[in-house]
């Protein structure tokens, strides 16, 4: 008998398992009233320095915590721990990105409702993290002035899936002749309307504006999620 070929429709998203876990996480974050911000960038763009500065500046006013993903070593977690905020490392081994299930595992034992902000630092990579939702409210893409101004055009997907772009290492901009206008226009080309902040984690320039951005993001988020209890 000659085998017959039959076409069967499936229509299933390949990443549906990740999407399901990410949705569950987003609901948990929402219920706990914690604002979750993820950070993506290429390796060496200053994610950890930026996050360390952010955690240190926020700690007096907010309950903050961070998860940090890396292929190997817990060096970044050790650096972030200097801020005295709770920090956990996710070591991904050979995996080039974080997935929602890894975030869920890393959160075991943490009381989310005690937190105002949770930061998730992804593995340094501008390609793979774009495809994986980790349940965050806001995705930040960092671009350092020591990289090319055309990075957004080379990696349009990650820029397009982000909510805010942060230009880092601004203290070096002049020395490396970084063309800020070109960087802005390239970002707007791949993600029209995305806000862009400029910071230097070293000098602290631009950090106040970033903290204000976070505070208003949390406020608008809480406005949507819970009714503040009146005492």
């Amino acid at each position: 008998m000659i085998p017959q070929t039959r076409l069967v429709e499936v229509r299933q998203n390949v990443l549906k398992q990740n999407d399901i876990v990410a949705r569950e996480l987003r609901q948990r974050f929402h219920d706990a009233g914690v604002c979750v911000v993820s950070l993506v960038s290429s390796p060496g763009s200053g994610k950890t320095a930026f996050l360390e500065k952010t955690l240190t500046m926020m700690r007096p006013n907010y309950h903050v915590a961070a998860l940090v993903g890396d292929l190997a070593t817990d060096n970044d977690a050790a650096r972030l721990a200097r801020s005295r905020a709770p920090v956990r490392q996710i070591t991904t081994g050979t995996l080039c990105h974080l997935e929602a299930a890894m975030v869920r595992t890393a959160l075991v034992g943490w009381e989310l409702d005690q937190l105002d902000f949770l930061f998730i630092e992804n593995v340094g990579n501008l390609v793979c993290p774009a495809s994986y939702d980790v349940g965050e409210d806001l995705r930040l893409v960092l671009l350092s002035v020591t990289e090319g101004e055309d990075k957004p055009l080379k990696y349009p997907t990650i820029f397009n899936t982000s909510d805010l772009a942060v230009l880092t290492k601004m203290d070096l901009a002049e020395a490396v002749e970084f063309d800020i206008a070109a960087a802005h226009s390239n970002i707007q080309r791949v993600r029209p309307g995305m806000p862009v902040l400029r910071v230097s984690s070293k000098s602290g320039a631009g950090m106040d504006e970033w903290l204000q951005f976070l505070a208003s993001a949390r406020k608008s988020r809480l406005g949507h999620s819970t009714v503040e209890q009146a005492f």
Partner: protein
Amino acid sequence: MHELSIAMSIVEMAEEESGQRGGARVSAVHLKLGALAGVVKAALLSSYEMACEGTVLQGSRLVIEELPVVAHCPKCLEPRTLDSPQWFICPECKSPISEIVQGRELQVFALELQE
């Protein structure tokens, strides 16, 4: 490079479907791949071959339908196909355009089963 883990998910999905149909051999998987899915076609095709080894999909084809980015133009009030995922601008009226209606797909659309 996350194409291998994506290929393995595709194979798992197809194995499951085939299992539900009496373990029929899968001769082809049809995949929709958006230009903004963050997946490289060539890398996915070579990873797919590896992922199929020793499964009911061994020797099967991965047929990829590439989908360009389509976004809704706020001025023309029409869905427009972008010339490039590197420039979110309406090809007709040149307005910036950001409401994506197609382009993030990474979907197993259909399977060819041998019965």
